[in-house]
Each structure stands twice: as structure tokens, then as C-alpha cells.
């Protein structure tokens, strides 16, 4: 394992810039999550690191050495593809064995069996090992494709939305497993997800991509509490951050155009009146949809609240974030 560094990486497809001067350091042993909407360049970033595609300009370093022109095999990377890409002519077991049998690893037979069985256990697919890869459900295919990466100990694991088609329970299980594996082996991961919980719970670092640019990079807490822009602020937090005009509450700095308020940063009980429009009981918490001076706000409250729609409640902002006209945060 080693630090992986992207330095001013730019990639164009025709005249569309998929990655624009991205610089990113993935420290050894870290779990870096890339966030960004569809088309932001997340998959493209993984492909640059993997060696499947070359940057138009910029460099990539593994452990301080440039890997320019190196094949994926030479870089020794493992990747879970967004489209699982299992080998359809092979069984599940053969799919899992495939990387171990490569000229790169040439693993002895008993080590292959031991690793494959162990991974199958973790991913809960032991009973499907002799199935043809095409005779699986989408979620099973996805687990096999994670397994095909996890049987190896590469320089870096690249995972492109690896848990996207799993059900909630399995997803929670595998989140913990992945985190465990990473913590135990000290593996380095570059991980793409749309799932906030995955990002918050697993990441040591979060990178926010916006139209091919890396707009923020930092710890999950940092990105959550100090987002650099409205865009970055909306990438984390469930329910989403409320964005309202700056003059809704007094006290905004002069250049502020928007206020960003996390749902938990709206304190209730004092301040000004807001109308409760809808109450969503989620079990462990309750979401309130409020109407405040023609703005819609969402906040969370205690699970056993007696509020119902039509009530009024006094609210007041706590730790508001201020953004300028371009959506950049004001310090």
C-alpha cells in the first residue's frame, strides 16, 4: 500500500471536460469517498487511477512514483465496476478465483480456496459459488464483483457504488464488513457512493466533485460543518440542508445572499412563528415541514412530539451558514 496522488489531472471526452485539473491525495490506509451527482466525473477519476484510461494532462503517483503508461496490472489495483461485469462464461467461484490465478499473483491452489471461501462467507454468497455468474440476482452479482476485488491485496481498492443494488440490511452488514476489512488490513480505498450514510460512516476523507472539479476535500465532519459552497453543503446531511434567502433572519453579513441551515440547526421554542405543514414520524425521529415567511424549511424534532399540521412553532437559527450570490460560503 502507498499514498496515491493525483496532480492536476484533466480528462476530456471530445470537447466535454470530464475532469478539470483535479489534484487529490489519497493517504496510505485512508478511506476516501467521492461524492457528486451523476456525470460529475467520479467513475472517470477511478478509471484514471486504475490505468484503464489516461489523463490528457497531469500526473498520477503511487508511493511517490509516477505510474504514467503503467497498465492496471503493473499498478496492482483492484476495482469494483459500476456495472458489475462478472465474466458470464464462468461460475461464481471461477469469477472469484480469476484475479488470484492471474500472472500477477499466481496464487497456489490451497491459498486460492482459502481466500475464496473466506470472502464468500463475508459476502454471504457461499451457497451460490457453483452458480453460473449469469444465474444471479443483481445484488448477488454486485457482491461477487466486490468479492473479486476483496480476494486481493492491491495497492488501492477502487469501488464504484459497490453497494447500490443491495437491500438495506445487507448494505448495513457490508458497510461494517468493508470498514472492518479496511481497518484490519490498512487497505487504501477510493470509493464512490451516492449514499450519505456510507459516506459519513466509512470515510476518513470526502472529496466533493462538481462538473469535473474537486470543490472540497476533507474529513466528513469538516465537509459537513464547513462546506465551501451550497453545492458541497447539499451533498451531505439527511434531510438536506435548508437554503433560504439571507434576509429571512436578521444578522446576515452584508455580502450574504443565502442562508444554509441544517435541519438540526433550527432550534424550536423561541424566536419567530412558523407554520407546521406536515409531520413525518420516522420512528426514531420526527421531521417537521415548516412554512416560514414563504420559505419551506425542514427540521427534525423529538420522536414523540405532539405537533401536528396547522400548529405554529417558534423557531430560530443556530449556527447558520452564509453563502454569497455564487453559492460560495462566506467565512
Amino acid at each position, binding site marked *: 500500500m502507498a499514498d496515491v496522488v493525483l496532480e492536476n489531472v484533466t480528462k476530456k471526452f471530445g470537447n466535454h471536460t470530464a475532469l478539470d485539473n483535479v489534484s487529490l491525495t489519497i493517504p496510505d490506509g485512508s478511506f476516501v469517498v467521492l461524492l457528486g451527482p451523476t456525470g460529475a466525473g467520479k467513475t472517470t477519476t477511478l478509471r484514471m487511477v486504475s490505468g*484503464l484510461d489516461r489523463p490528457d494532462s497531469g500526473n498520477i503517483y503511487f508511493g511517490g512514483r509516477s505510474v504514467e503508461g503503467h*497498465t492496471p*496490472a503493473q499498478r496492482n489495483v483492484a*476495482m469494483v465496476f459500476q456495472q458489475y461485469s*462478472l465474466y*458470464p462464461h464462468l461460475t461464481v467461484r471461477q469469477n472469484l478465483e480469476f484475479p488470484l490465478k492471474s500472472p*500477477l499473483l499466481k496464487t497456489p491452489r490451497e491459498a486460492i480456496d482459502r481466500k475464496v471461501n473466506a470472502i464468500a462467507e463475508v459476502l454471504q454468497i457461499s451457497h451460490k459459488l457453483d452458480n453460473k455468474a449469469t444465474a444471479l440476482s443483481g445484488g448477488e452479482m454486485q457482491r461477487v464483483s466486490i468479492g473479486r476485488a476483496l480476494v486481493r491485496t492491491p495497492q488501492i481498492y477502487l469501488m464504484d457504488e459497490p453497494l447500490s443494488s443491495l437491500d438495506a440490511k445487507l448494505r448495513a452488514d457490508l458497510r461494517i464488513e468493508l470498514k472492518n476489512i479496511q481497518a484490519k488490513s490498512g487497505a487504501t480505498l477510493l470509493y464512490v457512493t451516492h449514499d450519505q450514510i456510507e459516506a459519513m460512516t466509512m470515510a476518513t476523507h470526502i472529496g466533493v466533485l462538481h462538473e469535473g472539479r474537486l470543490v472540497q476535500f476533507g474529513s466528513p465532519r469538516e465537509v459537513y460543518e464547513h462546506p465551501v459552497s451550497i453545492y458541497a453543503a447539499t451533498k451531505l446531511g439527511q434531510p438536506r440542508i435548508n437554503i433560504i434567502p439571507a434576509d429571512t433572519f436578521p444578522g446576515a453579513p452584508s455580502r450574504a445572499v443565502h442562508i444554509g441551515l441544517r435541519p438540526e440547526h433550527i432550534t424550536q421554542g423561541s424566536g419567530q412563528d412558523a407554520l407546521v405543514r406536515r409531520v413525518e414520524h420516522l420512528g426514531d425521529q420526527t421531521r417537521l415541514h415548516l412554512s416560514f415567511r414563504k420559505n419551506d424549511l425542514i427540521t427534525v424534532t423529538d420522536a414523540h412530539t405532539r405537533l401536528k399540521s396547522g400548529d405554529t412553532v417558534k423557531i430560530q437559527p443556530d449556527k447558520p451558514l452564509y453563502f454569497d450570490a455564487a453559492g460560495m460560503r462566506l467565512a
Partner: protein
Amino acid sequence: MSSYSVTEPSGRQKLFAGTLVILYALITILPLLWIIGTSFKSPSDAIAYPPKTFFSPTLEGYVNLFTTRTRATEEDVKALGEPTTWYDRIVRKDGFIIAGPSRFMERFSNSIVIGFGSTVLCIVLGTAAAYAFSRFKVPLKDDLLFFILSTRMMPPIAVAIPIFLMFRSLGLNDTHLGMILLYTAVNLSLAVWLLKGFIDEIPIEYEEAALIDGYTRFQAFYKVVLPQAMTGIASTAIFCLIFAWNEYAFAVLLTSGTAQTAPPFIPTIIGVGGQDWPAVAAGATLFLVPVMIFTIVLRKHLLRGITFGAVRK
């Protein structure tokens, strides 16, 4: 209520379809049965009118196919003593003695060498070219593909004379190599086009996965693309073999001895001692066997083609 399914045909539909298929199969197989039947008739049964459906089978046709015979006087036959083998006996009955083996085995093995040789070469070159056309940025790709196909826009025999002259100056006349190269050249355009279609269907993600898994590009091709292209390769190989196997005009023109294949040879059997239709039919029957075996061996891959759509992304 009878169960109704959109995709599953009803019993009556199945019966109708089955009947049609069987009828069609009978019509196609009839000439084959006729030839096979004729190969077991005696020469007089073979030309009997009206044709005989029932006859006493004999191997005379096959014996005549594999031997050359001369008419012998009774003293000569006597001097030879009793016939020692079953085929001696068949020949003697008509007052002939066996002079030696015919050239059929040689021609037949020429057919095998040239037919399978050109098929293998064609598949190797065709797969490589199709893969390159499918995966790489080839300059002028579309023009090249069109150009390749244009070689099939006239009957190959139209260029017989230039080929004949070329072969003569290259010393390829009547050689196995020459015929293999010629049939490969004729089949290659079709092979490239067919195979490119099949390889295009294989998502590139599989090769990328193999590259990530530690394989080189060539190993990825070999381990991942080839197995998935087997359906295409099998059907293309059958097409190539059938063309090379049955080709007549070039074989007549360019081969006469060493490299002569079976198609120009079989009709010459007629000439020896009258109209020997059973021997011709025997030659044709044996001639069918290799292509049939080849097709049956590859059938497994052809059928798999139907389930090929199970590739999921």
C-alpha cells in the same frame, strides 16, 4: 379455464410448427437419402427404370470407389486362383480384377488438409482482424471494412485468370499451400464481418475487468473474449469449411495432381468402365461425413448462441 401465456405457444401452434419443420426436414434430406441409397445399389439397380426403392444392398460402389480395376480374361482369373478377400469376390463377379487402389483416399485427404487448413487460418486471421476492428481506433476503419467486403461483390471465379497466372509465377499451382491461401483469401472477408459482429456484442467491460484482475491485453482477449465469441467462431468456421470443402471451379483450374481435392475427382469416377453411379454416390456420401461431424461437434456452441443474451450489465 385454460392457462394462457403470451410467450408459450399453445398446443395447436406447436403441432403446426412441428409438422412444418418435419416436412421441411424431409424435403431437404430426400436427395441425401437418395445418394446414400444409390451408393449401396449395384450399377444396374442404380439406373433401373422405374427407380427401385427396395434393392439388395451391395458394397460394390464403395469397392469401385477405392480401387481401379481391369477386365481380365478367364485364364487370367483362373491363374490368380480363388479370390481371397470379400472385395476381390465382388469385383470378380463382373469379370474384373483389382489393379490397384484408386486415388480417392489421396484426394479425400487433400480435401481434409485444404478444407480444415484454410478454415483454421481463416478463423485465426479473421478473429484477430475482427477484434482489432471492433476494439481499436483503426484509421479509415469504415473504408477498410467496405473494401474487405467488396472482394465478395463478384463471384471469385471472375478473377480466375489473374489468380491462375499469379499462382503459376509463384509456383503455387497444384500445391496445398496455394489452395489453403486461396480459400482463406476468399473466405476471410465474410469471416471478418461475421466475427466483428459477434465481438462487438461482447461488452468491453469484461476485458477491462480482466485487465484490472492482473491480465495482459492478450490474456484478456484469450481468457475472456474468445470463450464468449465461441458461438460466432463456430458458425463462421462452419461457413468457411463448407465453402472450401465444396469449392469446385478453382479446384479444377488450379489442381490436377498432388493437391487435387475430392470435388473435381468424384465426377471422374464415372469414366472408368461405364456409368458407375454407385461409386460416384459412394464418393459423395463419404464426402459428406467430415462436414457433418464438424457441424455436430460445434453444435453445442451454436445452440449456446440462443442463450447468449444472458449477458448482464
